[in-house]
Each structure stands twice: as structure tokens, then as C-alpha cells.
């Protein structure tokens, strides 16, 4: 540990957390909705938007990881050790999925023969060659990882709400971009 952890998350960590929340909240439902559409211009557009959201979230991952490693998170609030362990595990898995979900989508897109052109302007390299079977497998991987992400986000949000509404502690407030510095843990 570098310095004394503050009561609140570092500002860069807060600034990176919420955009990724918004991106995920847009990309996920789009993904669920779009794959059953029959082919139409709208479908092609939605697929592109979904990919751009995913790539943006992938781009934000590196600075996010850097902030997480270089700026210590606030000290743990008092709770039994097993709950801290679950919280830590959830966070690690969330980080893993935040990179694995968009990456598997990019891989799947390459394998299915649809290159990703970021924002319709910047062609990204194909990560794998176009091939039917890997394409189907990567589709399954992308779906499964997303179900995992859904479960983890549900756990993460439930825990944050529980802390905020039932325990009335600073867990959620210390990630809030608004408001004052919450009081340090007693």
C-alpha cells in the first residue's frame, strides 16, 4: 500500500466507474434485443452501435485497471472477513468480465466475418480468421460471459443498495461523483 487510503475512491476511479456502468447498461440490452431481429438496416445499425459501445468500454479498461492498481481503494468498512472476501472476489471477477465480454464480442465478430470499424471510421484488425465453427463457439462464449456479468452486476448492485439503504454506511457514497467526502470509517 502506498499512502493511507482515503475514505472515498480516487476521483479518476469514480470518473471511470460510471461511464462503464452507462456503456454496459446500453450495450447489454441492445445485445439481447438485436440478435433476434430479422435482417434490416436497423439491425445493422444496432449491431454497429453495440460494437462501438463494447469497444469504448474495452478502451476504458486499461486506464481503469491502472487507477485500481496505483490508487488504493478506500479502507474496508467494518464487516465480517467472509463478506470482504466475497466483495473482493466479485470485484476481481467484474474486472475480468469487463475485459472478457467486449473482447469475446470482438473475437466473435471477426470469426463471423464482420470486421469491427470503430465509430464507422476506424477499422480494427480481425483477431481471428473467418471460420464457421469458431464463430459459433465464440458466440456461445460471448453469451455465457454476459450471463456471468449479469449475475455479478446483480450481486454488486444488490450489495451496494443493501449497504446504502439497510446498513446506512458509506459503501455507495464513496463511489459517488456527487456530494461530500463521506466520513472516514469508524
Amino acid at each position, binding site marked *: 500500500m502506498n499512502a493511507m487510503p482515503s475514505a472515498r475512491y480516487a476521483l479518476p476511479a469514480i470518473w471511470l466507474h460510471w461511464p462503464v456502468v452507462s456503456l454496459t447498461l446500453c450495450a447489454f440490452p441492445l445485445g439481447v434485443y438485436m440478435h433476434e431481429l430479422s*435482417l434490416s*438496416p436497423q439491425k*445493422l*445499425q444496432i*449491431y454497429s452501435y453495440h460494437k462501438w459501445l463494447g469497444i469504448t468500454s474495452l478502451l476504458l479498461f486499461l486506464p481503469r485497471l491502472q487507477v485500481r492498481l496505483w490508487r488504493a481503494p478506500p479502507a474496508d468498512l467494518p464487516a465480517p472477513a467472509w463478506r470482504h472476501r466475497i466483495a473482493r472476489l466479485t470485484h476481481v471477477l467484474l474486472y475480468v468480465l469487463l475485459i472478457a465480454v467486449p473482447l469475446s464480442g470482438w473475437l466473435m465478430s471477426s470469426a463471423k*466475418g464482420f470486421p469491427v470499424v470503430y465509430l464507422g471510421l476506424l477499422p480494427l484488425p480481425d483477431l481471428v480468421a473467418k471460420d464457421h465453427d469458431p464463430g459459433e463457439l465464440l458466440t456461445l462464449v460471448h453469451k455465457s460471459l454476459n450471463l456471468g456479468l449479469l449475475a455479478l452486476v446483480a450481486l454488486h448492485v444488490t450489495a451496494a443498495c443493501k449497504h446504502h439503504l439497510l446498513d446506512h454506511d458509506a459503501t455507495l457514497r464513496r463511489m459517488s461523483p456527487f456530494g461530500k467526502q463521506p466520513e472516514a470509517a469508524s
Partner: protein
Amino acid sequence: MKPHTLLSGLVGLASLTLADIGCGAAEFNQVLPGKSSLTFTYKQMGVAMNGSFRKFDSRVSFDPAKVNTATAQIGIDLASIDTGSAEANDAVLGKDWFNTKAYPGARFLASGVRALGGHRYEAVGKLSIKGRSRDISVPFTFTQAAGLGVFDGTFSIKRLNYAIGEGAWADVGTVADEIQIKFHVVASASPAKK
């Protein structure tokens, strides 16, 4: 890859042979479908996609020494399209796109060929798709290798000129209007005229 090696190995030999019989005396008019290809590139949402037609029938007669007597007619079985995605392969046969039930084929009929110097030539003629015909010019190169004549060319068409993609698909912001078509036609000289 082996035929390629074989082919390039034969190039040297072939040019000798051609020099012996007098280059240009041959009229290339037997198209080899297995060695020929017809591909295209289009853009959707800025993404370049490649496709091809598996079945097309080309009839050409081309003697580089007598270009003004050259003829070319290419018929394309539109249902043999591979757009690069299975979903699109079904969709493009429908009414909004090629409407293959009513218009199963596309056709290019050259009305003339002129030499542009070197290996470069230009064919002009009518391209007919989905009941619409347009005059187009098709630049191509002609080279000889291993006793075979090879025509290579690339040209662009605007899909809306032929009503390819109607209704919602007429929006060129999603699928671009311009389609680039690339052909590689290999023909042998007919034995009788050689």
C-alpha cells in the same frame, strides 16, 4: 497452392511457346469456370464486406491482335451469391434486393473493346440487373500465362441504379450505394484456331 506453383513454373515455358507460334495469333474463347472468379466488395455501416458469385457463365472471344472483333457476354446466376453472411444470403434473393424469382440472372453484354496500351483494355457494354440496363465501361488487363489468357478487372456500380435494395434498404447510409466488382476470367485458346 500447388497449382499456383505449377502455373508460375509454366509461365516461362509458355512465353517461349507463344513466341514460337507468334504471339497474338491465338483467340482466347474457352473460359475455364473453375479458374475464374467473380467477387464484390460492399460497405455496410462503414464495414467492408466481401462476397462472390459461385455460378456465372462467361463467353468471350478475344484476340489481343484483333481487339475490335472481341466479344464478351457474362451471365450471372444471382442465386449463387455468397454475401459473406448466411443471413444476408437469404435476404438478398428477396423482392427488395435481387428478386431472383422474377429476375434470376444478371447479364453483361459488351458492345466493343478498345486497347488502352500495354496490357490494358476497356470494354463498354450494357449491364442488366433486375430489369434495368445501364451502359458501363469496364477496364481490364489481359495477360497470357501458361498458354492461358487471363482477364482481370475491377469496376464499380451504384446498386440503386438497378434497384438492388429497395424500401428501407434504399438508405445508402447503412449499405453503401457503391459496389465494387472484381472479375478474374481465365480462358484458353480454342484448339482449332491455334
